[in-house]
């Protein structure tokens, strides 16, 4: 998977309004830092394989096309899920556009097309180019199964973020400098925003390799964050700013809610979670 030829075949010559400019650059796990320095860890946490970067010229401006190849379509969706904002477009699976940036996900590829000017002057060109790249990817890919466990009621549209590691969690919702939930490459997690009546909350669902590891994570989080010992499989505790944290352990899954302002509603939310 991920040969130079495969990636090269995804870049179009151009459109009626833009042409390729210069030779593409290729990056792998070893040299991704040369392209984005501290940004590389984000992609590496999603089992990044290769990146191809090609410039295009359009109306005296430049469009940068980045095609990221991940090992799996789930991880390509994961990195895409962090950028689900802007105008929703149905380019194959899912795409978003805003201010000169088009982001799309298809199979194990995440694609960014950008005019850094930050305006919409090249919007049509960028969308045309994006469709051409997308049409060269045969398969659609599949969403992470974990997403299907999220309750649909009250979920804010396109708020779900799929990831594996602590570094991504801390970007989405800073919890601690310590890895209190024992997240690593073997865990899968999804975080989403909910609006329940007048209450907003964040739901984090983590899948561990087995139930004992889920149990360990619960214990660690309770001890170090809540400063308590878990007394069962469901815990609701008040923290600062009159907010409640809820935890629910179910086999190898750990559900955590943050920011809930109502204890009863937080409990009801946890009770109504979809279980296997």
């Amino acid at each position, binding site marked *: 998977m991920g040969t130079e030829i495969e990636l090269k075949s995804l870049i179009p010559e151009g459109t009626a309004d833009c042409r390729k400019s210069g030779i593409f650059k290729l990056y792998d796990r070893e040299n991704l830092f040369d392209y984005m320095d*501290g940004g590389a860890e984000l992609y590496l946490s999603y089992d990044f394989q290769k990146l191809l970067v090609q410039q295009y010229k359009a109306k005296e401006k430049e469009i940068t096309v980045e095609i990221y190849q991940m090992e799996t379509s789930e991880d390509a969706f994961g990195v895409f899920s962090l950028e689900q904002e802007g105008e929703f477009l149905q380019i194959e699976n899912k795409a978003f556009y805003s201010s000169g940036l088009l982001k799309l996900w298809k199979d194990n590829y995440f694609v960014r097309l950008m005019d850094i*000017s930050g305006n919409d002057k090249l919007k049509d060109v960028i969308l045309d180019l994006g469709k051409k790249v997308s049409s060269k990817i045969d398969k659609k890919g599949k969403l992470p199964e974990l997403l299907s466990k999220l309750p649909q009621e009250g979920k804010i549209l396109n708020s779900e973020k799929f990831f594996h590691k602590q570094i991504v969690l801390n970007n989405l919702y800073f919890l601690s400098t310590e890895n209190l939930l024992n997240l690593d490459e073997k865990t899968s997690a999804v975080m989403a925003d909910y609006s329940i009546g007048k209450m907003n909350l964040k739901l984090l669902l983590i899948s561990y390799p087995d139930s004992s590891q889920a149990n360990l994570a619960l214990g660690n989080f309770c001890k170090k964050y809540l400063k308590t010992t878990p007394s069962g499989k469901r815990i609701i505790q008040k923290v600062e700013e009159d907010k409640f944290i809820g935890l629910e352990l179910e086999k190898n899954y750990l559900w955590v809610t943050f920011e809930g302002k109502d204890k009863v509603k937080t409990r009801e939310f946890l009770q109504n979670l979809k279980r296997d």
Partner: protein
Amino acid sequence: MEGKVNFTRRDFIKGTAFTSLAVALGLLSPEVLSSEQRKLERVVLIRDKDVLNEDLIVDKKVLYEMLDSGMASLGGEKEGIALWKKLFSPKDVVGVKINVKMAPTHNELIELIVGNLLKAGVEDKNIYIWDQDKIGIGSAEMFSRTRKLGYAKDHLSNVIKKCTALINVCGMKSHWLSGAAFSIKNWAGAIDNPFEYHTEDCCSTLGKIPAIPEIKSKCRLIILDGLRPLFNGGPQVDPKYLWNYNGLILGFDHVAVDTTALRIIQGKRDEYKKEKWILSPPPLHITLADTKYKAGTSDLSKIELIKLGWKEGMLL
């Protein structure tokens, strides 16, 4: 890495640690800080609404005036060149550490800095412009930068070893892994082991780099390019989160410069969302650069901030 930091969201909200960071982010009032030490670190913020046009082209004349006025103010001089001459002599070999990736420092600014070094008497062959191991020597190579000098055993760029003086020319970005990337983070491009600092604890040890004796003793000037900063995400750019701030921040103290930049980025985020939108993760490395590594001050009561030029949208 030594001395791991244990810090949680709960500590942050309670304000029981990282007080100066909480103040910079607007979570606590500056009055909670008390300064026994009277020495102030001067930081100059200068802006001009005409430095960028609609097509984001830099007006070099305006930028020249900004840099000159800013330097004059920073040094308490009538003209900027007087400070350049105080800081750099014809005997110096000067390394200009720029940032070339993802919203890079502007070439026009680099050109002005090299021009000022020449005016101060530094020889053209003794000016090194670099990021990572891509180096240009003198004005003819300042944009091409194809030379490589490698790194020493202690991981520092050989440019640092070769130079007698350094200038840190950094960008102004939020950063998904470290919270923010200003002058402290810029040094990650001057070592060959940056991954050791890009850690899951919000890159808490980044503040150690400007405190490395060779960097601390040689770095004489910090120039932060705040012409078009990034206030969300980063280093990878979403143009939606770039804005024309049209500013430069000048100083001698990494932590004071970064604390000032942090207040602006946080202010922009709050303005954009019309509510508190705290950087995530919190840029702990800025405070730790002060409290743990003694690389400078993050205490607002110890920073003498001079604000010059365009006031609208200054956010300070």
